[in-house]
């Protein structure tokens, strides 16, 4: 076991930091430390293209597809420096982190050639179409259907919790292609152009007032027959493979965001004296320990040859930690933190953390579903009887 980095890796870190500093002090300055995930979409597209131009857009991908085949250590370094520099949340996230690795694993050579370059170059943006109003935790009960009509799939149905859909060009959709099939059978993984008359978006406003997600309505939407990944009827396996890639190095970047949140709470506690309360200090120390443990767990998982059992525990662990952090933020802020500045339409940071972290234990698989998965897959406990 080694924690330290080699001199070569430290040179790589300097190179990354340098590039980021140059860009984010220059024309991309407005993007620095941007909190919102969706503000300034045009500038963000430019940013993605600039990263691509200098070979930073998909460093973990194989060289054959425009990546750098970066080592674990390099990916860790890149994620940490990216977050440290205050670089913007990546609008390309779904393409780079989720779809790309899935295509590399499951797609035909033609599909790879058709779709990977656009992701790598920062030209094509993707959205994700999994959940449906009646299939939240239970993906097996999906109803969105796709029917072949000559050379095209025709898609009808509704997806929910589609993130970044407003700025995406494409959406990948898990749809039922065998009429009458149930559960995980008869599903196909389709790549669908998002900007077409058959698709309508409606934003979902969350409890913190923001609208990161959308409902996506498919009403005779179309895509080419060949845009099915992994074969017709094999969508479940592809989707599960995609979910498995979420263990990726991106968790380290997310953790850097958590560190920024933690630091802001400590600063708030110092400013208003909450830090003098031993119970608050104790909770802050616990939160700090959680940060260190999450990082160590991510490094363990990334260092392992085979995906370890620990990977299954990551989601509940960070989600619960983050929810607790939101409560700590509010307890630190006190009543003074419960109001916006004069005339402001948004809540200050502590209150926003309190509200936005509440969703963490729900999206991306509720804590309940995650615990089922841990119990059954990692501990080998029996499934529940069917209803």
């Amino acid at each position: 076991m080694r924690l330290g980095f080699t001199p070569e890796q430290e040179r790589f870190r300097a190179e990354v930091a340098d590039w980021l500093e140059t860009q984010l002090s220059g024309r991309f300055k407005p993007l620095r430390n941007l909190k919102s995930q969706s503000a300034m979409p045009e500038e963000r597209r430019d940013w993605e293209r600039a990263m691509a131009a200098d070979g930073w857009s998909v460093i973990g991908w194989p060289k054959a597809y425009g990546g750098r085949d970066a080592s674990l250590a390099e990916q860790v370094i890149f994620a940490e420096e990216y977050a440290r520099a205050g670089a913007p949340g990546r609008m390309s996230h779904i393409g780079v982190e989720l779809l790309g690795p899935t295509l590399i694993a499951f797609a035909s050579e033609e599909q790879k050639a058709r779709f990977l370059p656009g992701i790598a170059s920062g030209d094509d943006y993707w959205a994700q179409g999994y959940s449906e109003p009646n299939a939240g935790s239970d993906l097996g009960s999906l109803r969105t259907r796709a029917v072949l009509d000559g050379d095209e799939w025709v898609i009808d149905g509704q997806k929910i919790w589609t993130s970044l859909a407003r700025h995406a060009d494409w959406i990948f959709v898990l749809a039922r292609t065998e009429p009458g099939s149930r559960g995980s059978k008869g599903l196909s993984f389709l790549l669908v152009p998002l900007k077409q008359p058959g698709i309508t978006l409606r934003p979902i406003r969350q409890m913190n007032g923001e609208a990161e997600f959308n409902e996506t309505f498919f009403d005779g939407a179309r895509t080419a027959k060949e845009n099915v990944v992994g074969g017709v009827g094999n969508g479940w396996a592809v989707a599960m493979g995609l979910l498995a890639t979420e263990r990726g190095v991106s968790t380290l970047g997310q953790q850097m965001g958590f560190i920024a949140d933690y630091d802001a709470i400590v600063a708030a506690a110092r400013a208003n004296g909450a830090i003098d309360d031993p119970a608050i200090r104790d909770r802050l120390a616990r939160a700090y320990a959680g940060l260190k443990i999450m990082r160590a767990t991510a490094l363990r998982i990334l260092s392992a040859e085979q995906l370890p059992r620990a990977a299954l525990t990551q989601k509940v662990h960070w989600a619960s930690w983050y929810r607790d952090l939101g409560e700590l933020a509010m307890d630190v802020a006190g009543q003074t933190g419960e109001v916006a500045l004069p005339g402001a339409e948004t809540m200050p940071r502590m209150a926003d953390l309190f509200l936005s972290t509440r969703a963490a234990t729900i999206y991306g698989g509720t804590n309940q579903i995650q615990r089922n998965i841990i119990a059954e897959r990692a501990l080998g406990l029996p499934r529940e009887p069917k209803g």
Partner: protein
Amino acid sequence: MQFAETSEQTLVAETARGLFADFAATLRETIAGADGFDRAEWMRAVGEMGFGGIAVPEALGGAGLGPVELALVAIESGTALWPSPFVPSIATAIPLLIATGLTEAVPALASGERIATILFAGDAAFTREGDGWRVQVEGLAPFGQAADLLLVVGATRLAVVSTFGAEPRLSLDLTRPLAAVSVDGMADAAVADAGPAIADALDRARVMLAAECLGAAEAALARTVDYAKQRVQFGRAIGSFQALKHRMADMMIATEAARSAVLYAATAAAEGDAGFAEAAAIAHFTAIETLQHCARDQIQLHGGIGFTWEHDAHLFFRRAQGAATLLGTPAASRARLARLIGLDVEAA
């Protein structure tokens, strides 16, 4: 000793339940309005139905009933998350004014014609000037912009102020928004050296806030149970999944404990029981924590829909946090309890 509602008390609760259920139908429109509450609802509940004066002596225009009846009304108002200045004006200002003998405004508050809010301040905010008291302070007060009177509450001093600035602020608690208020002028009326009276009145207010939190917690549980019976996933109502059942059972264990704490404290207030201050502290932190717990789990057990703006779950969640700072925090009540039961004095 008989620790059950009388039939009169049950009637009060049922009447209140029906009324607040009516109001709840327009909750979203009401909180979107300029004042964040509906004056017609206010006059109906406080004035016509008499809930404003239920615990006020008849000599001051009230019904002469007591804290138990007021608590039962507060529980029902909490069930509906009724957005109104009930807690500051009726449950807090009135007992403060009665306890300190500044009763002039009480009839108008009890009838709903005038509305009061409260601002906590250090005693240094009050300075003697001639025969009266000058008050200089700023801070946050619930429904401050709609209030006719501001009660500035120190540890031993209390002032009634009718001239003050108030600027509404976007607030975490959408059903009891705060305003930034500021005072710099002579009090209409004031008292000093009133520490014990103020403390007792605030204990009474905390019990009513606790009652309101209890009602909200019970409503959060009831809504969660209803949803869990209807929502189907994996071919079953999600309410048949044991992990979810146990979460809801835990919510009920908490709400029943909170109900015991609130009713006990209200009854102790009514009887002038020597243990009232203890009981008030216990009810206060228990009911607030119960609402925090139930509101949190209401969101969790609703899944994705639970964290949308359109669903009411976040209104409960926000209310819980607002309640947790309105009249002091749960931790502060626990510290007060520790003092009352002698945990922080030396040896015994």
